[in-house]
């Protein structure tokens, strides 16, 4: 007996997906198309004069050594955010999955930060780690660490990574927990009977079975690190000190929204769009091969 629902009507399926497609068109494709259009034009802030300048906006960017340097910063930031975000939440999910008493309380608390806006997460951490008044700074100074991310670039990077990761952990945690709970207990019990310790059981059974989730989260977290983190940066370091935390998406925001340079900002967002498309394609072509469904 066939359990699948089959649509016999020619138009009903299209009608059902139409709202989703309409939203995608209006909120994703249209702005993306506009960005491409603006990236070839030079316009004053008020949109009074618009001129076609071909690839000049792009040429301007690639003449700027600092723009090229911010690719490196972005790569470092994204790898750190994606890797730390996935690793920590996997650890937390594995632990929470074993908790018997008060599991619900743990899970709720771990999911909580997801409801916090990126800018708020940034401010929160910036307060705790503020160079002169932060509570963590106070402790760090006691143990002899000169904590001042206003002037030390590597500390600034650490701050924004921590804030960005903290916010994303809950999301990752949810998926990992769901993934863990769908792994049949019998497999793990069988391994335990054969004498495999918890570590061995995790790496040989749980981790491979979780690989689809991990892969999905890798893609989502990379996109998050590339696109969604400008709020964290804006609320804390504003790209500084120097250019230490000036990631590509923050420069897009700064130039477009704060400095009203639409052409330059759009050119950057088009470049960013290509990077993320390429990365996603690579992830699907090469990393996905290692995934066991």
């Amino acid at each position, binding site marked *: 007996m066939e359990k699948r629902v089959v649509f016999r009507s020619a138009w009903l399926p299209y009608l059902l997906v139409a709202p989703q497609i309409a939203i995608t068109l209006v909120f994703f494709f249209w702005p993306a198309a506009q960005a491409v259009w603006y990236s070839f034009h030079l316009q004053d802030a008020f949109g009074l004069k618009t001129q076609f300048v071909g690839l000049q906006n792009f040429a301007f960017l690639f003449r700027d050594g600092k723009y090229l340097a911010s690719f490196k910063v972005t790569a470092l930031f994204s790898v750190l955010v994606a890797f730390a975000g996935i690793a920590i939440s996997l650890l937390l999910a594995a632990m929470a999955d074993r908790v018997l008493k008060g599991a619900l309380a743990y899970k709720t608390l771990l999911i909580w930060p997801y409801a916090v806006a990126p800018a708020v997460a940034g401010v929160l951490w910036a307060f705790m780690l503020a160079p*002169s008044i932060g509570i963590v700074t106070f402790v760090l100074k006691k143990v002899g660490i000169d904590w001042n991310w206003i*002037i030390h670039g590597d500390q600034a990077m650490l701050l924004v990574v921590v804030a960005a990761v903290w916010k994303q952990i809950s999301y990752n945690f949810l998926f990992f927990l769901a993934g863990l709970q769908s792994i049949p207990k019998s497999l793990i019990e069988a391994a335990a009977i054969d004498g495999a310790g918890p570590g061995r059981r995790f790496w040989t059974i749980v981790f491979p079975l979780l690989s689809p989730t991990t892969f999905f989260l890798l893609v989502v977290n990379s996109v998050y690190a590339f696109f969604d983190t400008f709020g964290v940066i804006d609320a804390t370091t504003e790209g500084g000190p120097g250019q230490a935390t000036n990631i590509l998406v923050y420069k897009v925001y700064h130039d477009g929204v704060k400095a009203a340079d639409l052409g330059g900002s759009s050119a950057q967002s088009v470049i960013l769009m290509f990077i993320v498309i390429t990365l996603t394609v690579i992830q699907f072509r090469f990393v996905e091969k290692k995934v066991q469904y």
Partner: protein
Amino acid sequence: MRIKHLTLALAAAGMVATQAHAQTEIQWWHSMGGALGEALNGLADKFNASQKEYKVVATFKGSYPESMTAAIAAFRAGNAPHLLQVFEVGTATMMAAKGAIVPVATVMHDAKEPFDPKAYLPTVTGYYTDLKGNMLSFPFNSSTVMFYINKDAFKKAGLDPNKAPKTWKEVVAAAEKLKASGSACPYTTSWPSWTHIENFSAWHNIPIGTKQNGMGGLDTVFTINSPLHVRHIALLGDMAKKGLFIYAGRTNQGDAKFSSGECAMFTGSAGAQAGIKKAAKFDWSINFIPYYDDVKGAPQNSIIGGASVWIMGGKKPEEYKGVAKFMAFLSRPEIQMEWHTTTGYVPITRASYELTRKSGYYDKNPGADMPVKELTLHNPTENSKGLRFGNFVQGRTVIEEELEEVFSGKKDAKTALDEAVKRGNEILRQFEAANK
């Protein structure tokens, strides 16, 4: 009887309603939060109560860049406000948008409101006036950079608390003594580019850019890598290395470092006074910013920071009449005095400065007139009138990035300032091309 009352009441209500309708509304978008916002609303209320024809509706739209972005978006959608408060670095962008704005001088002239540009302080209006002498925007809240010292810390270090350092040489000497006495932060600053590049240049009468600091044309280039600029930034870099100067950040983070007592000397906005008064648990003084005494012509005069009010284009003539009335209202000496004394921003007309002095306010609040004195120390020159660089929001970020490279010891001053000029000029060319 009852019905009669009701009709009367209705008629009265109707009259009130028509009266309300007859009032012409003037929308004013601004960025004054907190106590400053209350003071601004107070001005609008006073104007509304002073006459019946016009009603100024003041709306807080977030930070300076935020309200400017909001107004640009509103303009593109065809419903810009009548008045928009724009910070000083946005001046070139607003000025170049010829179809989007109307010069204040034009609006005042068309409405036949009495208007004498000479009544305003030249350093304040110079920033917002074109080369032909037309005032383009209305200087609303202006401050300048001042030098503050913690007198208690000076005493502790064996320095004379009543003698604030006048020159940078004296600042370094004082900083060394302060450090020796255990100060963790002898000197800090807010607004690094505004203080150590823009005001530093005006104070020493050297150009920030060609073409009268950009006021003479869009084809300006930065000149902030001159030997004197390099000397000063190198000095700061050196002080940072020795722990005499603690960098606080790109905006007003230095304010809290001073008012908390952490830093003993501090350069920051005149507007920081209010916060220091409230928070400081020590004796302090406000002084002129330091200079290099071997530079000829220094000190000249400092330049302003803050914001001006721009009049947006495409509105009805009667609305512009109301705008003109409101601008005339804001220029009144007693209104200016109220704004000046409640907020700490400088008075913008000579008459209001005189009025405040006569009222005895400066005797009761020593130092409150220092900002005006610093701004008007000498008649402004081409180098000290102000500046007008396109896309200066980006330009300032570039300067601040390069300064941070010096303060963190990653670059020497010459390399950093050369790079700032090179990158800054690229931004200026981009602006020039977009606004040809």
